[in-house]
């Protein structure tokens, strides 16, 4: 599992970089980008197993980014992050194709568990 490729997408730089560091610390490699455009660019360069995407982002929102990602790499699993504190956005995202969602602030252990499950489904 340690060779999973994870992409973190959130306009909050401190959040994605720290989250990437923490995942790194636990043995997972994660790339962090700050916008949907950057994420699409990364997907053109590299294959990812799981993408963790914030729903509310400027310019292109997380659900639109997710749809584009799934077009580029149809096997990618997307876990949405919502800062809205409610399950509604997450459930809406799942209806649009997200594998799962998490409400901020995120419990890292649960996130890793969901990433593993997402990757496991792929396998």
């Amino acid at each position: 599992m340690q060779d999973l490729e994870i992409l973190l997408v959130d306009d909050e730089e401190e959040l994605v970089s720290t989250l990437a560091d923490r995942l790194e610390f636990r043995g997972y490699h994660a790339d962090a980008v700050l916008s949907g455009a950057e994420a699409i660019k990364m997907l053109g360069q590299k294959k990812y197993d799981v993408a963790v995407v914030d729903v509310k982002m400027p310019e292109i929102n997380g659900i639109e980014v997710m749809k584009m990602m799934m077009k580029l790499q149809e096997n990618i699993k997307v876990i949405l992050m919502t800062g809205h504190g409610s399950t509604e956005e997450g459930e809406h995202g799942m209806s649009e194709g997200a594998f799962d969602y998490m409400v901020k602030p995120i419990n890292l252990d649960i996130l890793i568990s969901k990433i593993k499950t997402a990757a496991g489904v792929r396998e």
Partner: protein
Amino acid sequence: MLPDIILSMNMKFPEEWHKKDLDYSSDQDEFLKGGRFRYRRLKRYSILLTAIVAITPLIIMTIINSHQYQKALKADLIYPISRQTSNTRRSLESFIEERRAALDLIIKEKNYEELYDHDKLANTLRHLKESIDGFIDLSLIDSRGKQVAYVGPYRLEGRNYSDQDWFHEVSIKGVYVSDVFLGYRDSPHFVIAVVHEKANADYYILRATIDSEMLYRKILSQILRPTSDAFLVNKEGILQTPSADHGKVLEKSAIPVPPYSPHSEVLEKKDADNNLYILGYAYIENSPFILMEVIQPEAFMQNWLTMRNNLVWFLGISIILILIVIVWGSFHMVNKIREADVKRIKLLHQVEYTNKMASIGRLAAGVSHEINNPLAIINESAGMLNDILSVGDAFPMREKVSKSVNSILRNVDRCSRITHRLLGFAKRMDTKIESLDIHELITEVLGFLEKEALHRNIKIDTNFPDNLPAITSDRGQLQQVFLNILNNAIDAISEGGKIDIDVKLRKNDKIDVIIKDTGRGISKQDLERIFEPFFSTKKEHGTGLGLSITYGIVQKLGGKIAAKSKVGEGTTFTVTLPVEAPITEEQ
């Protein structure tokens, strides 16, 4: 920034709003208590003004009608009286004129000697009586006033009238009609005298006595009616003929002598007892007589009184009916206005409440989103620190650093719960109605709290009646309601207390869930504000949203919530729920 927002929002709630919340069951009429006097005054004004507008014209019309009717009645009565008086006057004048003319003819046709001769004079009287009635006697008086010849029933020959007024008057005027008097004959009569001048400038007078009863019998009695009287008076008001109601001959009439008029006149008069009567009168030409015709008021008053009584009845009944309609109408109208005001106030409160809730909801959603992102960063950064600490080498004060990081993580978790509850507050409007067992629902809620209660040595007793029906309501929201109240109850009890849950079925398809704790209680001031958003007595441990959410949910589900409390003794919450929750448009 958040505490500032909460504080400013807290300030926005007006006093009456949370007072009303406390006693939700209170009648909305209480809002109009200050206006009750206004409604009573409105009722009074409405009745008064409508009554004036409706009844005044009726009274005026009735008075005008009454006067016009009275006038018409009088006109109907007066015209015949006037005509009759005029006719009677002509009859009387003819009566006197006829007799005067007869005497004038005799005195001109016969010479002094013929008149002086007793037999011839008696023969003349006999012929006269055969032609014209009323003559009693006939006499010849010379210019010295001596009665030189007399024929008639009395012995009056040789009488001298030179000292009497009538003798002088007839000597001057040539003709004379006397008042009625008794005279030597001692029976009422009047005289007609005519003068004839001789060639030697001397003169003599032919004088006839007329029975005044004839005037009454032949003329006046013909026009008498049960309610009328007709008689003659002289210019001094002395009765010249008998009368039915106004005295005997030669007595003074009670009716004053009316003013002179060359025509027949009709007057409305009042007697000594202030009773109305109609007087028709006429001065009889060439005589001292005045014809008086008196109509007693009964004749027209009877019709008038009947008419007036009918009018009074009509007016009275109309006024009563109008007043009944006005009073009923005013009460009905003002009650409708009052009901409309109550509805309006209720609606305004509802709108005010809904607007506040919507504003709070929007604010809560915004606030929670804005806070969740920085919270996530803090969470990840603190988590990172923890990760590093867990694998890093020991260093001085490591334990303290670890403790601090854990404190940060705990408080991030606490903040996260607050934002989640804020969002829950914003979204609590959504409801899903289903049939549920309140017993099962409360037992389920108690399942969440069992360990906490056990841990704090709190005894929870429940009392559910056997015949409790299933209710239709929102399971999730009701769970939240009871969870909030029970959580508060557990928090209020320090150690070893008791919570009683008593469920009662009320007659009007409602269920009371009474949750009574033996906690520290709530002060009166705080009790007034417990349903207010962001009000909390738990200081840093509470969000101040629990009971506000609870209140909103209960209200949404068609129920009521009330709280009673006494400091040091505990608090009782009563949640009243309908057996069937109302289906709102939103649902």
